[in-house]
């Protein structure tokens, strides 16, 4: 029935595709290869010289720059990156890898997949909207709050990598970032629209909800007007902040109940553009979400008193403030992807499992109080809770606080990057530093650190070594030197609620 077409890629490889459109985007039609391991996407419209040139760079130099660098393999799963350029019957196209299995719904929606989404792509919007998630998605698809923190970290890391290479995605949205919450996996797609400052201008404005206010506000101007603001690394930063806020809090940071104009289009333009205002602005409360206007399925997420952005902890909260208060209309003040990544790494060390086994979010962030409780289900933590304050030395003698804490819970692991400030858990981390070096258990009501592979571990006050295989009870005020290497950490134990 359907033909298989064989074409040469512009770099001289042969590729076949089945002549039947399997999907259509805003600009491209997509086909499968016969083996369904790759897809071929053709632009419907003829592309100008700059777009051709850009695609050549994306499938060539830019791809090599990211994937051939140290740690480059890590990115293969994080990006759906165009591999080859092709041309067929006057249409320009590209060959891309197919998305991994986990980006397609395994169970889909409730009631025996009443919506018929099993096998369809996991568009982020399914998970970023409380209404969709709570009313329709099968519980096995949803994931918990820890998964969403991990997802945000991966998105921030991938965006950081693109930006470090001088590339802006220009259309980051939940449509262009696939997520697999239960596996904490993400994949950035639609890379072919990327923007290189001064070289390749953007061809889309972005997707509603994610377009930076300055782009919305100047959208009526001609594309060549010097006052027109177009997608760039700065607007990617806005989109990234919105994505992170949305995934962690299931609401849009700017979609409150302030009505800006009676005409719906004008209202939208002002609310997302010139008059954009954070729904949790500390002094201007005019855009707060009114609880009277909220659906049952959107609670507690849309209750900003119950779940304020500060539940995201001490590292993410200031970034949200910069993104949506100070930097909302000042692109230069927006947090960078790098800053988000660092803050998310530190935040992941602050998580605590909720003791309520029925809690849908399962994890939350230590709120720095004497009686911590889960913000999602209000369950209080019971018993003694050890918090490790991390210090490190610049000169081998004096230890200074790293503004980094590690929460302890059952089976929590210690990794080399916890015991040495110079190691960062990212794509460049050597495999030998990815193995855990210790773990925590609770035994007869006492918290114990078991040393697996920290040769230098010692109790500073008593100068007692704790060799690998040995263990030590965590008590308030205990000081543990973890490593004598440069950047080695000192843990100061603090017992909360004891």
């Amino acid at each position, binding site marked *: 029935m359907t033909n298989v077409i064989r074409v040469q890629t512009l770099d001289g490889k042969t590729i076949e595709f089945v002549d039947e459109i399997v999907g259509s985007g805003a600009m491209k039609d997509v086909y499968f290869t016969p083996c369904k391991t790759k897809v071929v996407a053709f632009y419907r419209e003829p592309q100008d010289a700059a777009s051709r040139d850009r695609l050549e760079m994306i499938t060539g130099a830019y791809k090599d720059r990211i994937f051939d660098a140290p740690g480059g393999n890590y990115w293969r799963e994080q990006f759906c990156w165009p591999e080859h350029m092709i041309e067929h019957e006057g249409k320009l196209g590209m060959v891309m890898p197919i998305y991994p299995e986990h980006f397609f719904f395994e169970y889909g929606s409730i009631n025996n997949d009443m919506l018929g989404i099993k096998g369809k792509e996991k568009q982020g919007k399914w998970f970023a909207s409380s209404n969709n998630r709570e009313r329709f998605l099968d519980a096995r698809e949803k994931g918990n709050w820890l998964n969403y923190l991990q997802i945000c970290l991966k998105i921030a890391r991938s965006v950081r990598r693109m930006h470090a290479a001088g590339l802006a995605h220009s259309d980051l949205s939940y449509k262009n970032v696939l997520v697999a919450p239960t596996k904490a996996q993400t994949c950035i797609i639609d890379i072919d629209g990327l923007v290189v400052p001064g070289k390749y201008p953007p061809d889309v404005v972005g997707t509603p909800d994610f377009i930076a206010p300055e782009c919305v506000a100047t959208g009526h101007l001609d594309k060549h007007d010097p006052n027109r603001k177009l997608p760039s690394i700065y607007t990617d930063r806005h989109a990234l902040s919105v994505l992170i806020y949305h995934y962690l809090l299931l609401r849009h940071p700017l979609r409150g109940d302030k009505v800006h104009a009676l005409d*719906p289009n004008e209202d939208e333009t002002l609310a997302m553009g010139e008059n954009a205002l954070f729904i949790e602005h500390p002094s201007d409360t005019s855009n707060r979400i009114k609880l009277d206007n909220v659906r049952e399925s959107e609670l507690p997420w849309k209750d900003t008193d119950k779940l304020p952005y500060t539940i995201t902890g001490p590292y993410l909260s200031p970034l949200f403030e910069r993104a949506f208060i100070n930097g909302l209309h000042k692109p230069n003040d927006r947090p960078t992807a790098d800053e988000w990544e660092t803050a998310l790494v530190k935040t992941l060390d602050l998580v605590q499992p909720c003791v309520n086994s029925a809690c849908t979010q399962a994890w939350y962030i230590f709120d720095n109080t004497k009686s911590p409780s889960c913000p999602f289900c209000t369950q209080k933590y019971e018993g003694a809770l050890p918090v490790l304050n991390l210090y490190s030395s610049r000169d081998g003698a004096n230890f200074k606080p790293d503004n980094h804490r590690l929460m302890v819970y059952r089976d929590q692991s210690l990794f080399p990057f916890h015991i040495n400030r110079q190691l960062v858990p990212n794509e460049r981390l050597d495999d030998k530093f990815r193995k855990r070096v210790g773990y925590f258990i609770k035994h007869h009501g006492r918290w114990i650190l078991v040393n697996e592979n920290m040769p230098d571990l010692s109790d500073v006050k008593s100068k007692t070594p704790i060799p690998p295989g040995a263990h030590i009870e965590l008590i308030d005020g205990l000081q543990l030197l973890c490593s004598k290497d440069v950047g080695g950490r000192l843990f100061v134990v603090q017992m909360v609620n004891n």
Partner: protein
Amino acid sequence: MFVLHSRVINWFANKIKFHPTYKNYKDYVMRRLPVYLLLDTSGSMAGEPLTSMVNGVQTLLSSLRQDPHALETAALSVIEFGSEATQSVPLTELITFQLPEMQARGTTAMGAALALLNDRVNSEVIKTTPERRGDWRPLVFLLTDGIPTDDLQAGINALDKSKLGIFVACAAGPHADTTQLKKITESVVQLDTLDSSGIAAFFKWVSDSVSTSSAKIDLSKKDVTDLGELPPPPEEVQIAF
């Protein structure tokens, strides 16, 4: 069959009228994208055309339910016109929308359908007030295989188009008259034949159009107002000039 309730309804402080089929006014809180389908159920549609049309609405519904954005924002209504015009499904969110049982008989009361559309938009589509955000302007898709047998001009006169977003009229098959449809809207498309593949293609395009406008609506600074704003129609659907 859906029965239109005529009893009155709730009034809230901001004097917006709510349809009684909604149990909870909170169903209205999101800015919805209303979509009205005006479907010809005159006698000439009997047989394959009607079956294809019912299938088309079914496909439209299932594909929109698979789009998380449409699922959250779109609301759908069906107005049928045969010898008279009836709203067989009031504006309803996708998840509770029930397919109407349509029967083809009688003449083509297209003018009455337009007047009814105006009436329904006035009462179902929420206007924005200084206190409360209302809906997007509705998208309207009209499908007919013939020519109006009632007073079309009266219907056109009754219709306040400033309240509407894009209005697409589709002339299906050899007996539909695009010049009549051009009096209603600039955006007229044509299906050469009145068979299932053509009608299916039309509804697929409607679905893509709703998905597009719900996803990209604020990009263009306005609602979709002409065919250029919609995704390109499939080859079965031609733009009538």
